[in-house]
């Protein structure tokens, strides 16, 4: 008997075909009751194909059928209950047959799109008989209302790319990270090379990994994914490990509301990410890289895929890269609609074919990351900074920004500004200056949500704070992912708060009690308060819910799920301000 019992449901021939195309290991063979070739030992080799397999099934049938799931689970030797548990974790997978075969429109209802009439767009789609899913932020905040259309038997499309509106990119100096983005669009290797591409890789190969890490440490580069951890220290820790297998991961799950910088990087300068990841591999002794791209970024995934193909063709990836002793390959994984998969350990679980539940830390990724191996995980913007540092030197790098926050930062401006878009600025720029560069606030400034849903509110009192890690921290603010969502006085802030609370309620992975239930209770309480002034009992309960989520949640999602709400309370933005 094989080790596991699978389902009796029969797969369709199309489902069989797409699953077989994905999995190269032969099916388990049962020669007799006591002789089975290939059993659960298979799981270890193939389980990471579960997520791509689910995508393939969803695309083929328009939903994931019992027969299809059973066949996929059996081929991978993943218990079918677990495969179901994984599939139901993600927003983009449907486990029940939809009523119609038509496309599913995911329309963003998060704050910036909500104040730009996503509700009426949704109503319009529904009137026309379309299926609509009210989606969390889709990372197209510069052109609201954002939408993503999921199509059976076809390439799903993020409308942003489909409409091809060029992204607004700052022209102002210094343009470092964005220098190839905007006018040029370095989506082919030739253009990329002509604009300085692959110089840093040559340098890294010639000077070696120790030099690279030394430069990174001197540069003071810290992670741009939210936690601001020193990048050089991270790379050094992985370089020091003598594990046989080590990994480099680019965290391109970008789902923090108000954030779209990584999408722009991948769509417009994909080779830069490939080059920087290769340098990371060379520096820390890793031969395999993974790019985890959020499921809704289909254009970014396509362009990254094309870049990988080109880079491999030119031996910029593969074995003995450019004649050096170094080997490095990169694989792309698409997410499937789960904000939490941007948390690094949750991302590892997602790649490995498990539910995207964060792991307990310690151990940290540098000790035990992807597949339990030492792993460098960085944000795409962090990776781009590495190229800057190597190409122009530490001194030039540090000439921008402040001592503790050197360099430049990408800011995603959205909401009530004249020119929403992606702006690069030196650390230390103030909110006021940033708003001026974006053409100013349309209307009277009411509040700014800085750092995304996990960030906090600022208002006119904060306009002159230098935007650095240290200064924002001192003010109880956070730069987070660089999201700057601007709300003028036309906006009903309690609706914004309720939407933020709903976001966390929907996106909690559900693993730990403080966050699974706390996010629900916080949302319920905000609904109950509505536009009233909160009573002292309301305030106390909100505060105690915030305390347990912040203190006792497993991961950053629960730990920050109350910060925007609490900051709104402190600034007096909640409830009836007139009273």
């Amino acid at each position, binding site marked *: 008997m094989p080790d*596991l019992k699978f389902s009796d449901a029969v797969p369709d021939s199309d489902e069989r075909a797409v699953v077989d195309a994905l999995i190269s290991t032969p099916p388990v063979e049962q020669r007799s009751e006591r002789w089975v070739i290939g059993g659960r030992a298979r799981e270890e080799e193939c389980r990471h194909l579960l997520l791509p397999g689910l995508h393939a099934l969803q695309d083929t049938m328009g939903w994931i059928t019992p027969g299809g799931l059973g066949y996929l689970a059996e081929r991978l030797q993943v218990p079918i209950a677990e495969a179901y*548990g994984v599939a139901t974790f993600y927003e983009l997978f449907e486990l029940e047959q939809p009523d119609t075969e038509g496309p599913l429109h995911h329309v963003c209802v998060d704050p910036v799109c909500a104040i730009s009439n996503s509700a009426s767009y949704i109503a319009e789609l529904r009137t026309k008989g379309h299926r609509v899913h009210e989606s969390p932020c889709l990372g197209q905040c510069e052109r609201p209302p954002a939408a993503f259309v999921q199509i059976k038997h076809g390439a799903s499309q993020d409308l942003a790319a489909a409409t091809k509106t060029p992204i607004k990119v700052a022209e102002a100096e210094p343009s470092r990270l964005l220098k190839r983005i905007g006018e040029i669009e370095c989506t082919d290797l030739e253009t990329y090379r002509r604009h300085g591409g692959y110089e840093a890789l040559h340098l890294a190969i010639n000077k070696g990994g120790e030099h690279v890490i030394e430069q990174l440490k001197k540069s003071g580069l810290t992670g741009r994914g939210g936690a601001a951890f020193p990048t050089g220290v991270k790379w050094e820790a992985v370089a020091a490990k003598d594990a046989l297998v080590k990994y480099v991961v680019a965290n391109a799950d970008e789902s923090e509301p108000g954030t779209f910088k990584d999408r722009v990087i991948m769509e417009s300068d994909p080779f830069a990410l490939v080059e920087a990841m290769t340098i990371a591999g060379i520096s820390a002794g890793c031969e395999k890289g993974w790019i985890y791209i959020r499921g809704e970024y289909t254009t970014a995934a396509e362009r990254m895929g094309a870049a990988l193909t080109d880079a491999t063709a030119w031996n910029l990836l593969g074995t003995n890269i450019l004649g050096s002793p170094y080997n490095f390959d990169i694989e792309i994984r698409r997410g499937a609609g789960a904000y939490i998969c941007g948390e690094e350990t949750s991302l590892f679980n997602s790649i490995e074919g498990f539910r995207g539940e964060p792991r307990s830390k310690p151990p940290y990724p540098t000790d035990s990351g992807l597949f339990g191996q030492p792993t460098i995980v960085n944000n795409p913007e962090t990776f781009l900074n590495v190229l800057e540092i190597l190409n122009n030197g530490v001194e030039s790098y540090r000439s921008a920004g402040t001592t503790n926050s050197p360099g430049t930062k990408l800011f995603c401006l959205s909401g009530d500004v004249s020119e929403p878009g992606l702006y690069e600025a030196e650390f230390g720029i103030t909110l006021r200056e940033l708003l001026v560069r974006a053409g100013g606030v349309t209307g009277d400034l009411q509040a700014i949500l800085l750092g995304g849903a996990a960030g906090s509110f600022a208002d006119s009192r904060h306009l002159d704070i230098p935007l650095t890690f240290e200064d924002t921290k001192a003010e109880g603010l956070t730069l987070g992912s660089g999201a700057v969502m601007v709300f003028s006085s036309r906006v009903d802030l309690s609706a914004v708060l309720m939407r933020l609370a709903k976001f966390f309620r929907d996106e909690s992975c559900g*693993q730990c*009690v403080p966050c699974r239930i706390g996010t629900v*209770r916080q949302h*319920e309480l905000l609904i109950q308060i509505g536009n009233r002034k909160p009573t002292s009992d309301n305030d106390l309960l909100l505060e105690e819910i915030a*305390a347990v989520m912040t*203190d006792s949640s497993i991961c950053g999602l629960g730990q920050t799920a109350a910060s925007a709400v609490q900051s709104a309370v402190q600034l007096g933005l909640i409830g009836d301000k007139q009273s």
Partner: protein
Amino acid sequence: MTVTRSTEVTFSLNGQQTTVAAGTTILEAAQETGVEIPTLCWASNLTPVNACRLCVVEMEGSRALVPACSRECEPNAVINTDSERVALSRKMVLEFLDTTNDLTQSSELQTLIELYGADASRYSDPVRSEDPVKVEDDLFVRAYDRCVLCYKCVEACGDDAQFTFAISMAGRGFETRVSTEFETPLPESACVYCGNCVGVCPTNALQFKAEFDLRQTPDWDPESQTSTDTICSYCGVGCTLEVHTQDNEIFKVTSPSDHSVTAGHLCVKGRFGWQYVQPPTRRPPTNH
């Protein structure tokens, strides 16, 4: 002066210098020294998942509280297990659970709710976990409105004991639930009815059908119940059984979780195959 070898860790536990073997968790260290820390998702015979967060304690230098059940003691750590911050966190976890689940059949949780002053009445109309009781066979029932999602049954069914993997967490967030694939009824799933999930469930969400039936009658009477230790008569492994009876009728069979042979886990025969002990006249077959 204490000389600490690398195989030992010395740290401060509620102000007391404490030395334990390296690799000891804070919870184990506390248990060794008689310090009480409440737990829910932890069990001695399962891998810690640290999901309930009831066991959190304060560790100096750590921004967040840390779960005692899985966090290993670190040299020179300063740990406080009953600060105000800790008590508030535990009270809130208990309130959250109490506003969500039917906890009436878990006496440990009832005691803790009392102890920490958790007050579910502060919440107006909280959404609860509702699910009709699943009665699919004669062996055990699943009442998921009691389920606190502690992962214990999933672990016991999976690679902590049974390796059957019939159940998994499914869904996300507040909608997370324990489920077979596509909610298939247990008899058609991979389940082999070892009952190990029932054995580890802390809230009685999973319970023997015999117990469930008895609880439906006015006769349910914990005072008059006894537990008798015996050895399973089916095979040569010789698992220890604890046979729980009321009025001389069996309603549940368990095995001690610290038992060297079973670690609390049994197979379908030892767990559910007791009918031959009771003359059929005394216990009419249950039909549902």
